[in-house]
């Protein structure tokens, strides 16, 4: 197991290196410059001095070499848009709220979703099934900004039950969490239902029933475990997309998260932050995939991580 994880970490470094290289050159193809509107005010020779100062006049391979050299030493550089602020600090600052929001939404969404899916499957074609299908369809098809806007208006402004926006403690995270949880809820409900219906129809369930296992036992002991495997597969990418922040929800609820920062840095051509966030997201994604792979083995021992190793 340890060897397997080490091996995977080795691949991870290679993958990150490739991602860093590709994104660096792609990023440099982006139109515009990080100086933005300020450069409109400068004469050409003044502009050259500023560009020189930030090394933006060097040939791109030289810039790449410098960046990679610093990266290996763990230095992600300083931001352009937030003058002189370290990228690492900005990423850590802004990842916190996104992580909290993402975790809350993931737990809320998937637990309720799984429950919905389960109930719908057990009573499939019944009223509950019908209701949960409607919720699933609505949840996947209503854009999150519409839902977020409705939540904010009715619960925040009309009822004044919860703060409208900004980030000042747990009560401020409730509305964005709900808005963010709708998609994982709908998705996991839909998956769960389909899988569960299939599993409950299979031979081993009939056998279990024949042996006198109660309904509870059939559903949770025999059914759930098997139905979870495909769900875990989609949970990985879903977790990553939730935890790495979403521009829309963060903007609407004034959450200082990393999703907003990422998009912002792209429109501002803030190269060090674009690189930093890309690498950070990539690292996170690879890590989550690794965890998912390990989880498979726990949920279903038939899926082996290592060929015959202990």
């Amino acid at each position, binding site marked *: 197991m340890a060897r397997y994880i080490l091996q995977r970490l080795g691949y991870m470094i290679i993958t990150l290196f490739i991602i860093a290289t590709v994104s660096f050159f792609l990023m440099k193809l982006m*139109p*515009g*410059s990080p*100086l*933005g*509107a*300020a*450069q*409109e*005010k*400068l*004469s*050409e*020779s*003044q502009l050259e*001095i*500023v560009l020189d*100062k930030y090394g933006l006049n060097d040939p791109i391979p030289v810039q790449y070499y410098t960046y990679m050299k610093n990266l290996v030493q763990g230095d992600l550089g300083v931001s352009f848009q*937030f*003058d*002189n*602020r370290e990228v690492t600090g*900005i990423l850590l*600052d*802004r990842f916190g709220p996104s992580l*909290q929001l993402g975790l*809350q939404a993931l737990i*809320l969404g998937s*637990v309720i979703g799984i*429950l919905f899916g389960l*109930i719908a499957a*057990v009573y499939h074609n019944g009223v509950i099934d019908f209701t949960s299908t409607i919720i699933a369809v609505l949840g996947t098809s209503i854009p999150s900004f519409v839902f977020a*806007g409705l939540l*904010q208006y009715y619960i*925040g*402004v009309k009822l*004044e039950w919860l*703060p*409208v*926006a*900004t*980030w*000042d*403690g*747990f009560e*401020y995270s409730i509305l964005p969490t709900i808005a963010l949880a709708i998609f994982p809820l709908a998705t996991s409900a839909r998956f769960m239902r389909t899988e569960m219906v299939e599993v409950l129809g299979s031979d081993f369930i009939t056998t279990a029933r024949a042996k006198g296992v*109660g*309904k*509870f036992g059939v559903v*949770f002991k025999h059914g759930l475990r098997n139905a979870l495997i495909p769900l875990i597969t989609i949970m990985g990418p879903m977790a990553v997309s939730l935890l790495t922040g979403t521009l829309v929800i963060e*903007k*609407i*609820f*004034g959450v*200082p998260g990393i999703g*907003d*920062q990422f998009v912002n840095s792209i*429109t*501002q*051509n803030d190269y060090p932050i674009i690189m930093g966030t890309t690498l950070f997201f990539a690292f996170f994604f690879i890590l989550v995939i690794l965890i998912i792979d390990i989880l498979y083995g726990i949920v279903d021992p038939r899926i082996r991580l290592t060929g015959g190793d202990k």
Partner: protein
Amino acid sequence: MKKSNWLLLVFGLVLTLFLAACSGGDDSDSSSEGSDSEGNAEESSAEQVLNLIEVDEIPSMDPSMATDAIAFQWLGATMEGLYRLGENGEVKPGIATDHEVSEDSLTWTFNLREDATWSNGDPVTAHDFVYSWRRAVDPDTGSSYGPYMMGGVIKNATAINQGEMDVEELGVKAEDDYTLVVELENPTPYFESLATFGTYLPLNQAFVEEQGDQFALEADTILYNGPFTMTEWNHNQNFVIEKNPDYWDADSVDLEKINLDIVKDTSTAVNMYETGEIDRVGLSAEYVDQYAGDERMRVIEEPTLFYLKMNQTRSEALANLNVRKAIQLAIDKQGYTDVILNNGSVVAGGLVPANFVNHPETGEDFREINGDLVPVVDKEKAKEYWNKALEELGTDSVEIEMLGDDGESAEKTAEYFQEQLQSTLPGLTIKIKSVPFQERIRLNEEMDYDLQVSGWGPDYIDPLTFMNLFVTDGPNNNMGYSNEKYDELIASTSGELAQDPAARWDAFLEAEKILIQEDAAISPLYQRARTQLWDQDIQGVIVNPAGPQYEYKWAHIE
């Protein structure tokens, strides 16, 4: 069947409890973090506290590095330069009490007050200005606004920035601790108002050097000498501005505290205003109708002017004077401000905005004297010019590209202009090219466009801040406009006419006519306004024409 129903229900309940427990845990966790902010919310019902939003994080609190409105806003609130802008752009005493100007207008001697201190107790001296100004033009600093604001104004600023001279050669000296002598490159009648600008703020050398890389990155790595200090700065989230008890004029400051949350979305801000969490909100076009007639609404006219740039170097048609004249007249600008912008913006008839500068003797407004140099719209006349132009060009169809970006209402703007121009001028095809903002800046720089809507806000209170844009090869020209007479007139305002305010004024009036009427170099569009909702008990907030947008020093809550 029934039994298992119960089981499921119980399971569901257990899960719900588990969830509740989870979030309960989070609650106790974060309520400790949130406790001081709750404290804020309670205090905000007390007197003299403003709750506002800012639309983005402060990019920089370093006066030498600041380049944008948000930075200059909060630098202006927490720091003070030689002077400060008061009501109607009037210059009020700051760290300087007064000044003398030499006969040739090139040497300005400022007398500084002796009771001004930094927030660490150090006195604010003339040396702080010398250090800061040198730092701003030093090429090693990499400042954009240093060379922009000081180049051509302070003696040797440009040469130092280009590395041709030592930074000590900059035309600024501390004669003693409280006398600052500034040598200018050219006579600069507006230097007073320039000295209120963020780039000209002083810096405490010992402190800046001690902080090194960390300078101005956090609330406690900045020294303040203004009416307020920043006491808390949670990046991208919120910050707190509080009255500075050590400010030399603290008696004039009523406001105790300004709480600022960073909220980027307009509807979110409006919702926060509706629940009373904030005291002022800016409205976008769709909200203006919704709140029409509301007595909390204030329309704030800005001296920011938007115009259509017509690049004469790329399109053969735009090099033709009659084509440009036709374009000036073909667009119904009233329809544009009323329907597309709908934020209180008004049609502009020239380059220098209304209510911005007044005649040095009669006090009459610049715009009033020069009037509307182009009518709001005159489609008949436009057609006449157009037919003449087609004849001169020897063609019956012309294609022109219109460059737009991804900003607010940019798409609607491009489509409106396209429709107006094409329907008025037969044979004209407008091709719209939409690019990201940063790319538009680059294309502008490389003069790779035909038409584009561009805007300019003043950096100091003088017609020159606008008129300077279109001198030959000026960094902002970027459309191949060149007129010797225009250049001469503009140069004379910083030369032989610099000491004759009335004649200098006439030069600006004439230059504007040349630019817009004779040469039809640009087509003025509109002067921007902001529509906002304000809590009615907020009084005395000054909206500045240049520098920090709002001045809170004299603000109070009734």
